[in-house]
């Protein structure tokens, strides 16, 4: 039982990273999942990080401003590291992609930009993935890439 469950989860995860005969919609889906997990990881880290504004888990009453400032400064010294900077570049890409593609998915959920049902003909392009949907998908990739370039420039630019 346990073994088959782990095997099933493994197969499901590899399904995202094994892009055989993916169409654009399937890529959008995989990226939405991956970016969601990435942004969730950032959220968890951000909750811990901002907890240090008040001194972190050691402090259970209102601390003095001096103590809080010292812990915050120490947190920033710890985070001042090219590895974390690179992480933020990736998170910038993921966040913007997830936002704009998420708006596309919300529109789809409520029935907008759906296209009309029609007989499936060769090359079997999904009729639901209309031109407007494709445009929104590429817009999300474009803005995400622009954000990544901007963030790279902020951290590593001259």
């Amino acid at each position, binding site marked *: 039982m346990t073994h088959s469950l782990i095997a099933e989860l493994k197969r*499901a995860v590899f399904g995202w990273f094994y892009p055989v005969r993916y169409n654009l919609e399937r890529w959008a889906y995989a990226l939405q999942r991956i970016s969601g997990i990435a942004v969730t990881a950032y959220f968890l880290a951000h909750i811990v990080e901002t907890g240090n504004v008040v001194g972190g888990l050691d402090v259970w009453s209102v601390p003095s401003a001096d103590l809080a400032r010292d812990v915050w400064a120490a947190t920033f010294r710890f985070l001042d590291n090219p590895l974390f900077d690179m992480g933020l570049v990736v998170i910038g890409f993921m966040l913007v992609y997830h*936002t704009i593609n998420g708006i596309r998915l919300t529109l789809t959920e409520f029935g907008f930009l759906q296209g009309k049902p029609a007989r499936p003909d060769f090359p079997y392009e999904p009729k639901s993935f209309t031109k407007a949907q494709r445009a929104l998908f590429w817009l999300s990739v474009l803005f995400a890439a622009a954000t990544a370039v901007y963030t790279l420039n902020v951290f590593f630019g001259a």
Partner: protein
Amino acid sequence: MLLHYITGLGIVIAGGVHLFTVFLTGPYVENLAFNGGSYSVIAVYRNLLLAATLELLLVFVDYHALNGIRVILIEFHQGPKWERGVSWILAVTGILLFAYGTRTILIANAIA
């Protein structure tokens, strides 16, 4: 799932305000300093409207993120036991995250 879309749109708004206060109200290095300008870290927590926006953002992201993980996990594998287990573990995780984040906002708001 309606709540997933509602919180998603809420994040676009509350997260927009959050990013605006950090990056577009002045040099972000000043805004990420502990105190100083009117949008420094401690100034934002002391501003009731901005602190309330942060709390709202915390609730929205907390729900949206953990429900997203739940959707992924119950898409990977189906079954009543699995679904109940996943839902409970993520609900408890979400409540703990909400409690810790709220604690940060309340204490930071009270720092003299």
